């Protein structure tokens, strides 16, 4: 498995090296465009679509922030394909979501050179901006994080990242590896013929895999898995009943931010903003009559449960929902915990592979008899 290209860099020059790499790729016509996290002139780091090779300098893929799950961006660019070859640098959670969107025909990867990157976690947007203001660089974060510490200046990476078993991205053409590669080098791994061709055209030689990588990755995955199990246990204990759920969701105000932030919540128009949920006065009164009182706005739990029934089979646990909630309702554990079960039930895993058909799109007569209760 010798598909690695070593990219050594001196301290502080990682982004420069990457900029050169992609500049080269674009100039050599490997791709016409690049979608990658870029440092913004004002502040922050955002996914940016670059078509002018001379302007890739601002690239900073390893910046520990994901303002928007990139799957949504990729979907909007490729939903109706432009026919232009585009390299996309994304993280595991974004790519896994993207895989689902492809199955839902919301994105198409034919013209895309998909580049995944090792992910050590992301800070909430505001924290990240604060840390950048304090001068924390991506390299610094990588070093610290690889050492096992992501906490800094009272901020830490998001809860989703802490329990994410996928620091390394799959289903990609190329992979930017920094885990277990030594502090002075980044490796580019090619996983597909597309990837091989890209490296070749970019004039990059092929070498061996970095010695320590596999072990390092496994160790990290293990750590996060344990954390994940703990989190699930903690969530399930804390939320054993509908009452407990009500409690957890008590402050929901139906702003639907979580829905907007969710990469796999792909409806054009959400049923909750349609007529279906535009009730008449006498309906509200009726409910009030029934229980004497009626908390407004209504349908909050209904909303979350409906959303759950829609997306839990595709949920990748990116945690954008939690990040998006103005009332800091920690939704991620709820969705991720349920998703784990529903996906397991169909022996499915969101984003695992392009081939696996999504559950419920396959019509089987004698499926889940124990649930449907149909007996011959």
């Amino acid at each position: 498995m010798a598909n690695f290209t070593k990219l050594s860099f001196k301290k502080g020059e990682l982004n420069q090296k990457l900029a050169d790499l992609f500049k080269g790729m674009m100039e050599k016509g490997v791709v016409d465009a690049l979608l990658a996290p870029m440092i913004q002139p004002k502040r922050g780091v955002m996914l940016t679509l670059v078509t002018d090779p001379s302007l890739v300098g601002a690239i900073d893929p390893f910046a520990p922030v994901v303002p928007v799950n990139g799957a949504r961006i990729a979907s909007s660019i490729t939903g109706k394909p432009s026919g232009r070859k585009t390299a996309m640098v994304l993280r595991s959670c974004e790519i896994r979501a993207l895989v689902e969107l492809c199955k839902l025909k919301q994105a198409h990867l034919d013209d895309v050179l998909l580049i995944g990157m090792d992910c050590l976690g992301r800070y909430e947007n505001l924290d990240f901006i604060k840390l950048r203001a304090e001068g924390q660089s991506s390299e610094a974060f990588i070093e610290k994080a690889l050492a096992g510490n992501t906490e800094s200046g009272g901020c830490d990476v998001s809860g989703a990242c802490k329990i994410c078993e996928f620091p390394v991205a799959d289903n990609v053409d190329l992979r930017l590896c920094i885990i277990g590669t030594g502090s002075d080098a980044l490796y580019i791994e090619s996983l597909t013929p597309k990837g091989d061709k890209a490296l070749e055209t970019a004039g990059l030689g092929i070498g061996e895999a970095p010695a320590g990588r596999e072990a390092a990755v496994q160790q990290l995955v293990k750590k996060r898995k344990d954390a994940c199990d703990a989190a699930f246990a903690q969530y399930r204990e804390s939320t054993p009943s509908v009452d407990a759920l009500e409690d957890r969701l008590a402050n929901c105000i139906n702003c639907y931010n979580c829905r907007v932030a969710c990469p796999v919540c792909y409806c054009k128009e959400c049923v909750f903003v349609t007529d279906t949920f535009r009730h008449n006065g006498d309906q509200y009164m009726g409910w009030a009559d029934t229980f004497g009182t009626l908390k407004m706005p209504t349908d909050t739990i209904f909303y979350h449960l409906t959303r759950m029934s829609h997306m839990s089979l595709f949920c990748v646990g990116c945690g954008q929902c939690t990040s998006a909630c103005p009332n800091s309702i920690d939704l991620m554990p709820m969705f991720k915990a349920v998703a784990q079960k529903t996906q397991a039930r169909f022996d499915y895993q969101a984003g695992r592979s392009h081939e696996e058909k999504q559950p419920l799109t396959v019509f089987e007569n004698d499926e889940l008899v124990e649930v449907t209760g149909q007996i011959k």
Partner: protein
Amino acid sequence: MAEKKPTGTVLVAGAGVSGIKAAIELAEIGYKVLLTDASPQIGGILAKLDNQFPTDHCGMCRMLPLVGREYASQYCMRKGLYHENIEILPFTELKSVEGDAGNYTIELLQKARYIDTDKCNGLGECIKVCPVEVGDEFNHGLTKRKAVYKPVPHNTPQMLLIDMAACTKCGECVKVCPTNVINLEAEDELSTRQVHAIILASGVKLYNLEEFEDAKSWAVSPDVVSSLAFERIISGSGTFDGTIKRPSDGKAAKKIAWIQCMGSRNRRQKRDYCSSICCMFALKEAVLAKEKGGDDVETTIFYMDMRTFGKDFYQYYEKAVDEHGVKLIRCRVQGVMLNPDKSLSMRYFDSETQEFFVVDYDMVVLSTGQVPYETHKKLADLLHVAINAQGLLPTDPYEKVKLIKPGMFLCGSLMGLTDLSEAISSGIAAAGQVSRFLSGIDVTLLEEEEIPEPTAKDRDEPLISIVLCKCSEKAKESSVDFNALGAGLKKLNSVGEVNIIDMVCSDEGKQTVLDLLSKSKCNRLLIGACHPFMYRKSLKNLAKKAGFSASLFEIIDLSSIVHKGFFESETKDQTRLAYNEIRAVIENLKLKPALHVETLPINPAALVVGGGIAGMHAAFSLAQRGVKVHLVEKSDTLGGYAGTKIEHTIDGLTPISMAKDLTIKVLEHKHITLYKNCEVVATQGSLGAFETKIRDLAKEENFYLNHGAAIIATGGHEGVTAEYEYGNSDQILTQAELKDGLTTGEIDVGEAETIVMIQCVGSRQKDGREYCSRICCIGAIANALTIKEKNPEARVFILYRDVMTYGFAEQYYTQARLAGIIFVSYSLENKPKVELKDGSPVITFTEPVLNSEMQLSPDYLILSTGVDAEASNRDVGKAFSLPVNGDGFFVEADSKWRPVEFLKVGLYVAGVAHSPMTLKDAILQAEAAAHKTYAYLSGRKIHTAHVISKVHHAICVKCQRCVDICPYGARSYDEVLDRIIVDGATCQACGMCGVACQNNAAEIMGFSDKQIMAVIDARLYRDPVATTAQ
């Protein structure tokens, strides 16, 4: 002045499944049908069968039309049949038939029921008070019934009658009858009717324990039952309650044995035929016994040959044996012995171990076969025709359903001993023959039902008119306060008016309602009455008359509130229950959209793929009825396999010359266009409007054909094999090669001493043709007999697994043995071995009777290599996006109930493309497929149903999950329009798309989330008004 032409009227005598199917098919194309049955109910045997293989579920309703469902009043067939154009006359016998072609005068004797079933409300007060108890025929005496009874427990409405033989005329029933419709003095009524054609579907009697000598001697205990009785024992509507109870003492039956060939394959009883259905019947019952009774139930079938000849039969057999562990023992048992502990002992000889065993069983089921002859004699006399040599009704040599007397047809078991799917196809085929016949005489069709245009009123703000029938008030259980109820409902939003009247079901009642409604301002209607099932039709018409849209009309069953109380309701306050019930319905009705059916544009041309005999027959049958036909054949000759290769068959048919005649008819017919050397490339569209791309292989160019429907009749050919040294010796041939050789004289058996035939070569096994090719056994026998004719001294051995001479073909098996042909069975585990000794075959096999190794060095070794599907089936399947099974045959919509249809409406299959079958069966299917096609292309308006699935394009994200999941293939993604398209004819509103679609872009019209949630709300609703209502 020209007098009005009469409406084409058809008598269908016999309301078993085949009769019902024929009736529906004719009614659907607008003929008037009299459907009679000698028994008090309809449904025939199937009324008793809850489970049919291969699904082991009931699927009866699948025989109902799928397009424009509401107009066929889609409904559970086990409950009953409703169709405007069908007049159902149960308990009616055909007494006489006079007149001739197209003009028959018949006498019908309607036996007295002593109850006016039109007025009877079916609640059975009378049954409660009747003092007489007798054994219930429906459950084969396993349960008791009163003298006044419901012939079929699950019928709705109940068609009660009085069994005068048992009745004591005590008159109790008359006293309690609320609708006073009982007349103990009623008499049979003889009526005379005019019909233009007649279909006989009276079926045949089953061998039974009451009548027949040897069966009687088996009945040593109530625990020896007929297979039909066993069907009742394991049926929920029978005595089954989770355990299979043996009748004698209700003890759980854990060891059950089936005895095959009861009353069949018996020369001594002059019944030398095979009843065809019993083997699968027994297998199914054995499987069900295990599934229902638990894994500890042991099931054993004593058989001679397991005749699993039909499509999917063999797989089912494998499943029964391998998965369910059904035990099969090849031994005909002499009798059964009743032990003091009620167990039943049987002694049998196990050929495998060459040992005798005596085994005790809890129950013994006799696979009682069909008994055709008497029935046929009776009918023949009635119709003034002569019985044929076989003792059966004389039919056309090629068309099983066609009696030699014009205008008379038959279907179902009468044709010969048919299984379910054949009964259905024959029903359709008979209907087809009738419509062909009637199209040639001077009769008209019934007026098409007028579909009302949408009115502006429908779109106004909902205003509901409620009509409540208070007749149920009289019932003693009733405590509904109708005034309070009315008052409560009146208060509700969008309720315009509440009218409470008595006896809506009565004619006066109906009139009152009509008067009230015609004045009404409301645009939606809710009627509360008892037994909507009974009145739905008439109330629907009532609503229509009063100008309410069918989609804005609801019926609610008040009686169930009164009589059953409401499910597990916490309160017994009936007024309140009624209120909540009705309120929920109102909430729904309020939100209901006004739905209107679409009329589908129909291109009245048919495409027939395949120019074999089936294809040509279908094409001709359609053309005869004025349908334009495109006949596409990929070779440059018509006739297919049978029509070009088979000179004559054992039953005296001559396929080649028959095909020649048919070819001429086809070529000469002005409505048929023939495309030779052409094959189907791709097709798109839906019922009424298909466009198919055709490739001309000769000219090497493509062209397009437009058609409203298509029939796939691509046929098949003799199987190929490399087994048994085939190809390595010129003494080893296939049956077809032998047949050719014998006809051309190239093969001379004059000197031959020994000839061996091996059956099931590469067939009926997992890694091969996993099916029985159906024709090989008969084919082998035919060849063997020819050999014997040419050289009586020759010894012919046929090595077989099961001799598949089902039905009357059994006679050929007997004939063959009589001619000295020797049949030796072998098992799949222990196939014969063939080796070549200096170029000649030597066969070694285990002789099962003497259980010894035997060897034969024949002059010829003949292999029965079965029938293979056309290789091109897969491409044709792709072109039409039709399913093809592992063996390369097309997969029909439902193997039992929709044998010639595909799930996608407008596409049909006929002949060997469906599965291997005899020429007659292929022609039968062709006729059926042609009729299904004709029904849509005949020029009558085809409407979609009100309730079908729609796409809200504005919010559709085109993820196409709905396309993937639609079980009917009614949805597709149109690349050009970049839209999801719904085939309105094919959609059955099952709702799968609604489930798959996350943002409700796919909606089943009339079942919006909003409605459903509103109903849920209403049900959860506790209303101060109601609690204070009374």
